[in-house]
C-alpha cells in the first residue's frame, strides 16, 4: 500500500480539488467547531434508511450520507459517484479500486483537522507515532546497524565511579539518565545549541553523557568534568555546601535551566513569563496557596512554581498520608496573623496548599534530615510508597470540590488522568555523618536496577518498595500532547 491515492482520486482532485474532502472532514469526521458539531449531531444519519450506521459514509461527489450496510454502495452504483468518505475515520473508499485508498494530501488535512477538533474540545491532541520522512528513510537504508531492545537488555545501565564521597551526585545522575522524557529528549538530539563545540554548555555535556550511557559499553563511567562543572556553578549560584542528594538534584535542575535560559537554546520560547526549557517542561508544577481570612472569608490565592515537594515524615506512614497532610487546610493561629486586604487589618486565617498544575515528573523529598541549632539527626521512620500513584486527590480543583461537598458536577474530572508511575528512588543508608547513597532506577517497564556507584545489580519491585526512601521520583503514566495549529 502507498500514500499516493489512485488514478480515480487524482482525476477527482484535478477537477474539484481537495476542498470537498476538507469540508466533509471538518464538519462530519473531526468537527472543528461547535457549529460543526451541531451539523454532525443532527444530520449524521443514512439518507436511505435513517439509521446512524453501520459505518456511515459520505459521497465525496454530492455529500450524500449513507451506511456501509449497502446504501452507500447502492448510491455509488446508481449515480456513478465512485469516491466516498468513512465518517468515523476519514478514509476514502474508491468503488472502482474496491478498497480504501490513501493520499498524503488528504492525510495531512485529516491530521490538522484532528488537532483543531482537539483544541475545540479542550482535550489533548491524539498521539501520532513517528513516521520517517524522506531523509530519515534514506538514512535508515544507509545505516544498516540496528540495536534491538530485548527483554533482557542492559542498555542504558552503567555504573559511576565514586570520586571520593560523590555517591550523592551519582544517584541523581542515574535518576536523570533514567527519566523517560529527558532520555527521549537527549537521545532524540533535541538540544540545538548555539555555542556548538565551545565546551561551555552544560546541556551539551549532559547530552554527551546520555550518548555514553546508551552507547552499549558497560564499563563504569567517570564524571569528573560534568560534576565539577555543575557543582562549581551551583556553589557559585546558591552557596550549597551540604553533600546532600536532594540539594544536588535541585542545584542540577537549576544549573541546566539557567544554561537553557541564557539564550543558549534556540528553540526555547517563553510563554506567559514561564520558562519553557526542557527542565521546566518536565519538572515544573504549580503550587497553589489559599489563605482564607477567618473574619470575612476572603481568599487570597497565589501560585508558585515548584520542582519538588518536601514532605514531613514524622507521623504519617505512607506517601499518600504525607500528601494528604501537606494539602490539608491549616489554621495559622493568633501568633501568625496575616494582613487581610479585605478587612484592612491583621486577622487570623487558614492556609491550604494544593497542586494547581502537575509536572510530568513529580519528585518527592522525604525530610529525613533534621537540622537545628542543637542537633542534626536522621529520621528513619517507615514511609510506604506505591508503584502507581494517583495525584487527583491533592489537586486544587479536586480539593475545592471536596470542601464544597458537591463533587458530582465535575465533568472534567471524568477525563482527567493524573496517574503516576514510580521510576526512581534514592536512598540514604547509615548515619548522618557516615552515610552512603544508592539509587533504584526503572530501566524498562517492570525492570528495576540498583545503582551503587560502579555496581549495577538487578532488583525486584518489592525490594524497591521496601527500601527506606529519601527521594521518590514518579513519571506521569499517560502523556498529554499539545500541538501548534499550522
Amino acid at each position, binding site marked *: 500500500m502507498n500514500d499516493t491515492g489512485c488514478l480515480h482520486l487524482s482525476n477527482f482532485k484535478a477537477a474539484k480539488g481537495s476542498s470537498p474532502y476538507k469540508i466533509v472532514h471538518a464538519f462530519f469526521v473531526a468537527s472543528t467547531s461547535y457549529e460543526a458539531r451541531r451539523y454532525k449531531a443532527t444530520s*449524521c444519519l443514512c439518507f436511505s434508511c435513517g439509521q446512524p450506521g453501520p459505518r456511515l459514509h459520505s459521497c465525496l461527489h454530492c455529500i450524500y450520507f449513507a451506511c456501509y450496510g449497502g446504501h452507500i454502495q447502492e448510491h455509488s452504483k446508481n449515480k456513478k459517484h465512485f469516491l466516498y468518505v468513512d465518517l468515523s475515520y476519514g478514509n476514502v473508499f474508491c468503488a472502482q479500486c474496491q478498497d480504501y485508498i490513501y493520499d498524503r494530501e488528504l492525510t495531512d488535512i485529516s491530521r490538522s483537522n484532528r488537532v483543531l477538533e482537539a483544541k475545540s474540545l479542550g482535550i489533548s491532541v*491524539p498521539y501520532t507515532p513517528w513516521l520517517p520522512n524522506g531523509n530519515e528513510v534514506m538514512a535508515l537504508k544507509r545505516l544498516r546497524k540496528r540495536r534491538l531492545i530485548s527483554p533482557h537488555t542492559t542498555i542504558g545501565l552503567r555504573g559511576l565511579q565514586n570520586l571520593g564521597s560523590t555517591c550523592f551526585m551519582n544517584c541523581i545522575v542515574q535518576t536523570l539518565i533514567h527519566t523517560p522524557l529527558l532520555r527521549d529528549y537527549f537521545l532524540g538530539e533535541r538540544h540545538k545549541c548555539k555555542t556548538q563545540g565551545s565546551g561551555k554548555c552544560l546541556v551539551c555535556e549532559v547530552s554527551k553523557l546520555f550518548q555514553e550511557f546508551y552507547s552499549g559499553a558497560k564499563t563504569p563511567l567517570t564524571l569528573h568534568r560534568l560534576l565539577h562543572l555543575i557543582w562549581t556553578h551551583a556553589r557559585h549560584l546558591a552557596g550549597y555546601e551540604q553533600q546532600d542528594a536532594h540539594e544536588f538534584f535541585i542545584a542540577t535542575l537549576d544549573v541546566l535551566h539557567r544554561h537553557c535560559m541564557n539564550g543558549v537554546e534556540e528553540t526555547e520560547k517563553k510563554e506567559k513569563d514561564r520558562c519553557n526549557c526542557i527542565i521546566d517542561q518536565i519538572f515544573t508544577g504549580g503550587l497553589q496557596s489559599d489563605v482564607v481570612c477567618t473574619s470575612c472569608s476572603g481568599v487570597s490565592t497565589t501560585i508558585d512554581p515548584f520542582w519538588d515537594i518536601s514532605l514531613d515524615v514524622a507521623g504519617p506512614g505512607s506517601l499518600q498520608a504525607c500528601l494528604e497532610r501537606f494539602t490539608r487546610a491549616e489554621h495559622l493561629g493568633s501568633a501568625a496573623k496575616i494582613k487581610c486586604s479585605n478587612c484592612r487589618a491583621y486577622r487570623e486565617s487558614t492556609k491550604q496548599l494544593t497542586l494547581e498544575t502537575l509536572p510530568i515528573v513529580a519528585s518527592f523529598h522525604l525530610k529525613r534530615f533534621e537540622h537545628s541549632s542543637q542537633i542534626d539527626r536522621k529520621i528513619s521512620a517507615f514511609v510506604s510508597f506505591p508503584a502507581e500513584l494517583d495525584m487527583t486527590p491533592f489537586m486544587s480543583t479536586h480539593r475545592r470540590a471536596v470542601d464544597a461537598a458537591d463533587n458530582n458536577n465535575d465533568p472534567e474530572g471524568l477525563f482527567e488522568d493524573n496517574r503516576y508511575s514510580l521510576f526512581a528512588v534514592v536512598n540514604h543508608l547509615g548515619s548522618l555523618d557516615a552515610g552512603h547513597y544508592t539509587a533504584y532506577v526503572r530501566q524498562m517497564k517492570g525492570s528495576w536496577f540498583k545503582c551503587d556507584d560502579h555496581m549495577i545489580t538487578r532488583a525486584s519491585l518489592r525490594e524497591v518498595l521496601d527500601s527506606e526512601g529519601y527521594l521518590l521520583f514518579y513519571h506521569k503514566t499517560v502523556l498529554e500532547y499539545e500541538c501548534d495549529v499550522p
Partner: protein
Amino acid sequence: MTVNNTIAHQRLILSGDRERFKELLRRRLIECGWRDQIRMVCREIVKEHDSNSITLDMLVARVTPRARALVPDPVKKELLQKIKTHLLTQKNL
C-alpha cells in the same frame, strides 16, 4: 434506535463528550497493549495473502470478532461506568 436514544446520541456529539469518551477508550486500549495485539493479528492475516489481494473489508471481517473478544473486561467496565455516570448527571440538568 428510539427517539430518546437518538437525542442522547445527538447530545453526546454536540457536547463533544462522544469524542472525549472515544479518546479515553483509545488511550486505554493503547495502554493495555490491545492495539499492539491487534496490529500483530492484522500483520499475520496480511502475510497469509498475496501482497495486494487483501482489502480492508476482508481484514475487518476477519479481525473484528477476535478484536472484540480481546478487549479486557476492566476497560469495558470503566467505560460503561463512566458513560452511565455521565448520562445520569446530564439528565439532572
